[in-house]
């Protein structure tokens, strides 16, 4: 308690330490919030992609980029049949439905896509829907008829014949002022309507049968983080990347530091052949390249983040740190208080763990703190090389996706900048705290 206060009190004199501490605290809060808000199985399911994201736009920018650029970019809008004034007529076991899906569109930019999601009861005969698009200036554009069985998605944007008729891609052509297709398209502001004329069969057997329709007008901005090429909200990966990065960095730093420390202390204490063996192992290990070995393990065995963590720790045990700790521990081995401990019968393990290691622990804290982000970066580097965890969303995997989709070439700069900014803030936070701790624990560095 008092020892903790002794460390924290001088930190107050370093504004950088407080800023670093605040950054780390913010990351921890985000991590904790994420673990509660998006439980692990849900995060995995969301990141697997698919149906959960079918109503999200592809590669939409974050909302705030539109504010910053002063552009009027549309968000995604869903027009649901349950809110629409439907009309219904029954005769001879056949039900006729008339559903007008209406929405106002007054943005200067066009939507990124148009999709219609239909859900009809499944029976002996499929339901039939005829679609008509009505523009604010009163034009009627027939969009053809569709047989609907169960869940059905009608991709208006990918309707090739419609595109031929309009002379533009449908999500532009349907909302543009009529005119020369070769001229730049201009949005016709006003109220649009998609009219669904549906016929359901065999309603006698199923009196509640109806047709559910959702018209999705995909926007060009989505959420605070934007979306990727698979419509996934990047926020999921940005949020989940925080606990993964912190856990990986912290576990790797703790794992390597503690094992290295105990082994170095055991070598110093027992001396002789054990010390010699540890030194030789360290020297061999120091010339082994970490990254290629990790790439090899990832390629041949498994890219699970926990396997990688294990390999990082295993290779970190006999790292150069052993040499440093040995140099620090050698004089402590001869300290009179250790001799006193032997004289009252303390065991070897007790002397190593309770008398030698605590003596150098304070000096190691700054090194330890600055070690954490280096492991976070290592994880991101592995993910960028395509050796990221196959299931978990992480910052490195966002970067990997962004690179694979040529994000910068396509102008999706947010895709790269967001995870990069989080990585940099993590590094910055731990570095600022670590350097300040170094000044606290190594008084020789003060006032320099």
């Amino acid at each position, binding site marked *: 308690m*008092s*020892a903790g206060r002794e460390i924290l009190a001088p930190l107050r004199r370093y504004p950088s330490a407080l800023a670093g501490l605040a950054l780390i605290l913010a990351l921890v809060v985000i991590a904790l919030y994420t673990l509660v808000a998006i439980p692990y199985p849900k995060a995995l399911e969301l990141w697997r992609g698919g149906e959960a994201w079918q109503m999200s736009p592809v590669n939409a920018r974050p909302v705030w980029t539109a504010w910053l650029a002063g552009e009027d970019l549309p968000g995604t809008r869903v027009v649901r049949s349950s809110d629409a004034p439907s009309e219904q007529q029954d005769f001879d076991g056949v039900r006729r439905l008339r559903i007008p899906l209406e929405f106002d569109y007054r943005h200067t930019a066009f939507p990124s896509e148009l999709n219609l999601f239909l859900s009809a009861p499944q029976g002996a005969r499929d339901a039939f829907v005829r679609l008509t698009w009505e523009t604010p200036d009163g034009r009627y554009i027939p969009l053809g008829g569709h047989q609907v069985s169960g869940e059905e998605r009608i991709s208006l944007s990918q309707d090739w014949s419609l595109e031929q008729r309009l002379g533009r891609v449908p999500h532009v052509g349907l909302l543009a002022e009529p005119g020369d297709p070769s001229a730049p398209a201009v949005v016709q502001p006003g109220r649009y309507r998609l009219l669904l004329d549906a016929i359901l069969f065999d309603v006698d057997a199923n009196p509640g049968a109806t047709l559910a329709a959702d018209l999705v007008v995909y926007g060009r901005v989505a959420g605070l983080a934007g979306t990727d090429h698979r419509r996934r909200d990047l926020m999921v990966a940005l949020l989940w990347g925080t606990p993964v990065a912190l856990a990986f960095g912290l576990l790797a730093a703790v794992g390597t530091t503690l094992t290295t420390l105990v082994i170095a202390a055991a070598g110093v204490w027992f001396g002789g052949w054990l010390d010699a063996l540890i030194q030789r192992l360290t020297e061999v290990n120091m010339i082994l390249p970490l990254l290629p070995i990790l790439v090899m393990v990832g390629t041949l065995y498994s890219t699970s983040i926990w396997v990688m963590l294990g390999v990082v720790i295993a290779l970190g045990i006999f790292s150069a740190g052993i040499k440093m700790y040995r140099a620090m521990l050698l004089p402590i081995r001869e*300290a*009179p*208080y250790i*001799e*006193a*401990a*032997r*004289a*009252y*019968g*303390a*065991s070897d393990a*007790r002397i190593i763990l*309770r*008398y030698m290691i*605590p*003596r150098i622990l304070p000096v190691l804290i700054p090194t330890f703190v600055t070690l954490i982000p280096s492991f976070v970066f290592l994880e991101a580097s592995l993910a960028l090389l395509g050796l990221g965890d196959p299931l978990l969303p992480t910052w490195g995997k966002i970067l990997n996706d962004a690179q694979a989709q040529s994000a910068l070439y396509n102008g999706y700069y947010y895709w790269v900048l967001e995870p990069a900014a989080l990585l940099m803030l993590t590094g910055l936070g731990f570095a600022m705290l670590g350097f300040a701790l170094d000044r606290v624990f190594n008084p020789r560095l003060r006032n320099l």
Partner: protein
Amino acid sequence: MSDAPLLEVRDLRTWFELRQWGFLRVGSVRAVDGVSFELARGEAVAFVGESGCGKSSLARTLLGLHRPSGGEVVFEGQDVAGLAGAALKRYRARVGYVQQDPYGALPPFMNVRRLLAEPLIVHGVMDRAERERRIRAVLEEVRLAPEEVLHKFPHMLSGGQQQRVVIARALILAPHLIIADEPVSMLDASVRVEILSLLRQIQRERELTLAFITHDLATVRHFAERLFVMYAGRIVEQAPVDELLDHPLHPYTQALLAAIADPDADNASRQREIPPGEPPSLVKPPAGCRFHPRCPHAIAGHCDRDEPPMLAPRPGHGVACWLHE
């Protein structure tokens, strides 16, 4: 029982092997070389000698920190040399150790309560209240106010207080023998007598045996009953303290006594009989009497050839010197 000596040391040798390239034996440092003596229960003795004479090696061998190369250390009827495991641990509880440098002797990252609890934890006192009771009792015994020092770290205490804590730690396992290796040489002159008196008083109260290691002949008269003079790994003279200081027989003891600082200003210019040369090499000690190269009275052909046995020219006074044959 009380007549049997607490500690009997017979022909004790502590040699440190010198190795080249990690495995070639090229000789030994004979730090302790054929030392014999007995300590009775409840007596205070002092070992004196200059630096490098083997006093500290002797202390460490008695504490079980060095394995003796030969000879016997019999403590309460049990040979200590071969002890290991639980038996060695039990022996260590019976022998307390007070070190020279009180600040170095205390782990700097433990407060007083914690560092005094350590020996108790090591020896299986798991009851927290029992530990606290014993810690407070022993702190009061060394005249420290428990409330004042329990929560303090060693650097927050004065040198005298630190040494009291070291003494308290040596006492907390209720030992029968305390070995104090130059307990006051690193302290301010003002607190030396205080600490020595405290040790002596505790020794009398607890009726334990106290072995001082010191090079300070000036204070030894007041704090020890018997005196052993060591030179080059051997005991050269032993006697009750007054007898030895008033009638030194060995030329080395005489030289040591002559070297004591004399506050009388009239004597400032007086030439003293100081033996020339340095203490001999412990790797290749001189043949015969180890003091003969420096001895002003050495008998050529005798002292440099034959090792003098422990002679007793006066009752209770032993000296290893051919001059007193």
